[in-house]
């Protein structure tokens, strides 16, 4: 029982008595606590997930038919141009989400990590896009991107000549334009998370290193950054999930257009399942999307598992 390294672990669960499990109240306790949550979760989350996987092997249209067709949906999916366009757009979203908000969010958090008057307003201001509904963000940014919208007008006022930039009309620009609107919203969120993380950075350590002659940059790199690592890991995972989940802005700003150039897997799944009545096909897209998420989940879980093992 001398488990001093695990102050919260209650051992003695394994083999302390010879009663069978269901008679041993002592060993049953953890399971008793888990009954309700695990049951509810299994019924409403885990079960449905498996059902979707099964549905992806059928030609279900949600209403009339549901026959097993094996891997046909997946075969069709990998030959579908729209799928590949959406997939690569998702990559663009992913890369954007795990780079820019982190750099910008961290920068803002470092800048605002003080008690100067008005800083509270700055924090709230940069965070405010998060509380506004996607519908509003989508509409207003669409207006800003229009040929005679705010951005093009500003560029013209600054002396730019020529045709207005087709932010939402040009197939090469459209995905990046939507990502821009999404990043505008995301930066404040990441900033807040970093602000929380910075609160836990031991100020005395930083000051000590400064007094010892280290430059601000050095102490940042060697002391602050490593202490921010746990928060960074969370932020990276959240960013990945948010990037893959995102479809509200795509849906509102371009519906995935023009002709599917800004489509993402989440939007594609939604249209296939709920507009084209291809439930089976939609389920296959959802499964692929989930698999991509799982790849990153496993990477994160492995990292966390390392932490567990270190205990």
């Amino acid at each position, binding site marked *: 029982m001398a488990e001093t390294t695990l102050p919260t672990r209650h051992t003695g*669960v394994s083999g302390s008595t010879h009663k069978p499990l269901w008679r041993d109240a002592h060993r049953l306790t953890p399971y008793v606590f888990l009954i309700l949550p695990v049951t509810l979760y299994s019924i409403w989350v885990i079960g449905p997930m498996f059902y*979707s996987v099964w549905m992806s092997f059928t030609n279900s249209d949600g209403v009339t038919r549901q026959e097993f067709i094996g891997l046909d949906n997946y075969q069709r999916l990998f030959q579908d141009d729209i799928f590949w366009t959406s997939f690569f757009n998702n990559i663009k979203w992913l890369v954007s989400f795990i780079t820019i908000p982190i750099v910008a969010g961290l920068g803002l958090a470092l800048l605002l990590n003080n008690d100067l008057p008005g800083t509270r307003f700055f924090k709230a201001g940069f965070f405010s896009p998060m509380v506004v509904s996607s519908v509003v963000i989508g509409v207003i940014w669409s207006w800003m991107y229009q040929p005679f919208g705010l951005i093009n007008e500003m560029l013209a006022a600054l002396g730019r000549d020529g045709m207005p930039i087709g932010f939402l009309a040009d197939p090469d620009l459209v995905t990046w334009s939507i990502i821009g609107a999404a990043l505008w919203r995301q930066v404040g969120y990441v900033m807040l998370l970093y602000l929380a993380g910075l609160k836990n950075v031991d100020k005395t350590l930083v000051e000590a290193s400064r007094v010892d002659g280290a430059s601000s940059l050095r102490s940042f790199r060697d002391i602050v950054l490593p202490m921010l690592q746990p928060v960074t890991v969370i932020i990276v995972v959240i960013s990945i999930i948010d990037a893959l989940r995102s479809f509200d802005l795509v849906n509102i700003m371009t519906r995935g257009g023009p002709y599917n150039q800004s489509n993402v897997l989440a939007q594609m799944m939604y249209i296939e399942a709920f507009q084209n009545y291809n439930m089976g096909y939609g389920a296959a897209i959802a499964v692929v999307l989930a698999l991509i998420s799982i790849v990153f989940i496993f990477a994160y879980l492995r990292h966390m598992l390392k932490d567990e093992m270190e205990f």
Partner: protein
Amino acid sequence: MATTTAHLDTGEYRKKRNWRPIRIAFYYLFLVPLLLIWLIPIFMTFLTAVRSLDDITLNGPFSWPTSFELQNFSQAWTQGGLNRYMLNSFIITIPALVICLSLSSLAAFSLARFRFKGNLIIYFTFVGGSLLPFQILMLPVYRLANTLNLYDTYWALIIFHGAFQIGFCTFVLRNFMRTIPGEIFDAARIDGASEFRIYRQHVVPLSLPAIAALATLEFTWIFNDYLWALILVQRDELKPVTTGLASLQGEFIRAYNIQFAGTLIAVVPTVLLFVFLQRYFIQGLTMGSGK
């Protein structure tokens, strides 16, 4: 100590002391314009919300307004049915919160405190499930609600949100509970307390910061959910504020002004919650970081 104070008296430190006012000036000079530009879309929201629709159509959204209509807000409230929808949002969110937080704390307690077969698997299932894209759950959950006769009731949304958020909340609370020192449990056990007693009297009170933080986050997420409300509820009088706001948008006319006004009203509960609980929020969030 002598060396360090000598350090402090060098020109370097003095330079820093004189620097500060300039740095402060640059600080504001940089941030204020940045913030103003950053908030342009937010200004636009307010601006659009107080104009008339003809004004927007005729002059374009970025033009100087020729109208000022505060009644858009009251119109959103009554004609848009916002009073009803806001109430529904609360009716759905608060019970879902209670279910989610109570069950998650039970699960987190078990996972944090006991070592038993399946502990890690169950934990990772909760974590993994919370990261699933919702699309993979849409149709099966709809079918399930139908089969259980819960379709088109408050319960469908309450139970689903309560169940789904258990994943994330268990993740955070379990990590938080692991930081609770073991002496508390040893002392309580010596007193002969049952595990449930320990949970109720010690663990829950100590976990309040994390629970408060989660309550804030979850409130925002459940309150602002749109898609599940669309799929699980059909009747108007059950709709939460998100789908209710969407019905201000029609096939032919897009009443941007009223819709934006409604959005601004709908944002108020979330903002208030953040303001009042921000202390807990920041504190509780880092607890789940697995430190």
